[in-house]
Structure formats: C-alpha cells, structure tokens
C-alpha cells in the first residue's frame, strides 16, 4: 500500500480532517483544518470524500516522497488560486514551497492520510495534543485505499476575502454600548503569536464595564474573546472548550478560513453580520463534494 515518507517539514505540519465533534463536555477541543474550504477542495480534487484526512502545513517547507506505489495528490490553500490533482509517481518527491502569501497549505492524497483515528477523528489538537502526533521529518504516513476518481478541475473558491462578519453576544453587556462599533471601526494587526488556538491581534483595547470574574463557560469556534488587556482574540479550531473571559461577538463560520491565511502584521477588520439567513456557500461546496 502506498505510503508518504516525510523528508522535511516547515514550522508545523499536522494531520487534520473535519475535527472531533461531540466531546467538548469532556474538555476536548474540536481541532480540524483551519482553512476548511481549502482542505475540502484538496479532498475533492484528489477524489476523496469530505471526511478524509489531509496534511496542514504552516508556511510550507513540506517535502514528501511516495513509497510503494504512486498516488494522486492535490495541494491547496496559501497562495494557490488554481489547484489541480497531480500524479506523484513512486519514488517522486512533492515539495510544498513556502508560500508568498497566506499561511496554511493543504495536501490531500487519494485515499486520505490513514493514521489511526483518535476519538473518531484524525485531527491533531495542538492545545492538549489529542490526536495523531505532529508530523516530523522521518514520519511515514500510511495512505488509505482510493475509492473515487481524481478531478482534473474544480470550481475555484470564489474570492470573498473581506472583513470578518460578526454577530453580537453572548457577553456584549460586559462592555460599553459602543463596543461593537469600536470593534468594527478598528483596523487590527495580526499578532505574531497567533496559532491554531486563536488569531491574536494588536490594536486598541475594548474597555469592559464589568470587572468581576466571569465563571468558566462554553466557548464556540469564532468567539471574539476579550481578555483583561482588552485586545480581542478570535478562537480558532484548537480553542479551549471552556473559558473565563467574556465573548463580545462571534465571527461567522464562513469567514473563519481567512484567519488561517492571515500573516502577522496583516490588517484585520470586523463588520456586523447582516441579519437573516446565513450565507450558504460552504454548505453548497460540501454538497457538491459529497456527490462523488
């Protein structure tokens, strides 16, 4: 059976799928690909179903060699507008270069990365390190049996980079009445210590009007949490399932992929989400992907 021998990695390479669901009450983070649409596109191109595990590479630097047979691969994400499936012959090497823009690249292989699942998922959670170990040079990754045809083409993701749309709450009453206006009027800069747990920002603080301690409560993906220094953090895939700082607003899930591709120093803006039914682009993509 085909395997992928990891020759080199960049700053962080992990195995990710759509995450570990239903275990937040045990303190287990969801994890999963940070740029979920890019990971889904890679899987579609490689002929996989939507639950197949892919590799997520932060700032490239990943080199893989196919062993014991060739395989179809597809690389998407950072800086790649026109991805397609490629045949990686046995013994050939795939290089994911450091991207010139964006952060996270995704490598799907036909059949999926077949490391043993942990609690129903192959995603690595970098908060508590639940799931497969991080991928290092020398790792040999098993590849599953392909059961779909690779696709030569796929509609590229519509370019809809823009301000992160937020819905107010649940703890907006811990802040001044104009807190959302302040949040949405500010151009924040992505901070260098951003990671899979959260997008950290540099910018003016949002003052609280309550200074007591919030008892720990459940946190959602995309929560805009405001710690005591007043500078918001957007919770991403590996966020702790509970937290003790008030959440001013929640970023729409359809916009979170952008947080995977923002580099330190780049500008981030927020904007109020329009009321009414949610945009359905990602759901359409998933449905399109499930027709294989």
């Amino acid at each position, binding site marked *: 059976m085909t395997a992928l021998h990891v020759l080199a990695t960049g700053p962080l390479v992990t195995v990710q799928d759509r995450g570990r*669901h*239903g*275990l*937040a*009450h*045990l*303190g*287990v983070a969801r994890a999963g690909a940070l740029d979920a649409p890019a990971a889904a596109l890679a899987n579609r191109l490689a002929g996989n179903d939507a639950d197949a595990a892919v590799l997520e590479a932060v700032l490239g630097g990943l080199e893989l060699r196919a062993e014991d047979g060739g395989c179809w691969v597809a690389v998407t994400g950072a800086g790649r507008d026109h991805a397609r499936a490629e045949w990686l012959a046995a013994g050939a090497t795939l290089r994911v270069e450091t991207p010139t823009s964006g952060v996270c690249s995704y490598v799907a292989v036909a059949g999926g990365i077949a490391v043993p699942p*942990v*609690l129903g998922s192959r995603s690595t959670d970098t908060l*508590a390190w*639940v799931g497969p170990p991080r991928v290092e040079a020398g790792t040999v990754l098993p590849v599953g049996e392909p059961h779909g045809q690779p696709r030569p083409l796929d509609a590229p993701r519509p370019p809809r980079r823009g301000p992160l749309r937020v*819905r107010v*709450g*649940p*703890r907006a009453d811990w802040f001044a009445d104009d807190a959302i206006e302040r949040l949405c009027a500010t151009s924040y800069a992505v901070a260098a210590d951003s990671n899979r747990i959260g997008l950290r920002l540099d910018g003016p603080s949002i003052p609280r009007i309550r200074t007591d301690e919030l*008892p*720990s*409560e*459940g*946190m*959602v993906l*995309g*929560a805009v949490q405001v710690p005591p220094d007043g500078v918001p953090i957007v919770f991403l895939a590996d966020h*702790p*399932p*509970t937290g003790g700082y008030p*959440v001013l607003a*929640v*970023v*729409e*899930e359809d916009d979170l992929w952008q947080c995977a591709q923002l580099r330190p120093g780049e500008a981030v803006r927020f904007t109020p*989400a329009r009321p009414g039914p*949610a945009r359905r682009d990602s759901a359409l993509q998933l449905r399109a992907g499930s027709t294989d």
Partner: protein
Amino acid sequence: MHLHPVGRSAVLAEVRDAVQALDLATWARSTGVDAGEVVPAARTVLFDGVADPAALRDLLAGWSPSGRPPEGERVEVPVVYDGPDLGFVADAWGTDVAGVVTRHSEVEYVAAFCGFAPGFSYLSGLPADLAVPRLEAPRARVEPGSVGLAGTWCGVYPTASPGGWRLLGRTAVTLWDPTRDRPALLAPGTRVRFVPR
C-alpha cells in the same frame, strides 16, 4: 433561565449554579436535544451546532430544575494524601493534616463539568466554608493524578500541566485515556469519593 444567542448556531443558557447547569445538560440530552455539543459549565450550558435555535429555545422553556441529585455512575478514587499544600489547607480549615484527610474524603463530589484539559473535571460538593484560594503563582508542572482544591472545587490533574490548585495528594488512577470507551473517568454527572490510602 436566561438564553443568550452565540453566533448563528449556538445558544448559551444561563442558570443559577453548576448543579443546575448539570441538571439542565442532563435533562436536555435525555430529550435528544438537537445540538452537536452540550457543554455544562459553572453557571451555564452551551448548546452548539444547533440547526434551529428557535426550536431549542422552545424546548428549553420546558425545563425546570429537578432538585434531585444527579444519578451518574459512582467512582472511587484512591488517594495518597502527601501533597505539598496539606499544611496550608489544614491552617485554612483550622485543623491538622488528619482533619484535612477526613473532611476531604467524607464528601461525595459530583463531576459538574470538564474544562482546562481533556478529562479535567470540576468536582462540586465541598462546603462553602472550606473554600481555599488558588496559589498566587501557579506551579510550572503538576504531576498527573495530583488531587487539588481551588475555591470550593476539587479536581484531579489528568495529565502533567502547569497548575495553581492547592495539592492535597495523588492518585494512580488514569483519569484520561482516549482509547477507553469512556475516555474521561470523571465525565459530567459522575459521583466521586476519595478513599485515603
């Protein structure tokens, strides 16, 4: 009960305390609530991955606190009481080390919710007059199995981590094992007794 919307697909239900939160979470699960995650915490239950928040609000309106203690599984945790903060806790409780062991082990705790780390349960049951403050500066490393107190919460560290709880002792029991059917030994609702060894 107060309901806060959280984004487009989650609702945070605010109740009186951790006991009510566990009661609500248990009740909601028993009704087959349509939510991907049901996360009780200190004073809230988060319902996440909810397709129809309006229907969830209607459902939750039908809950009233049962007033009954939880009927979760009973677990005994053997403890060697040799922790570094026994003396501090003894002073705080106006007793000696033997008195701390007796008072700590005579309570039946209930796992109210998990947080901080996979399988780390916040155990309720310690009376309010036995509350102790956290360490002013957390220890850089607390060994797995360490049994500690913070406020009126009791907890057992499932894995090595930094920690600021007052440590009473340690257990050899495995709190967290993702390969088990029940990965967290002390899942919410579990009733817990500590047995001195």
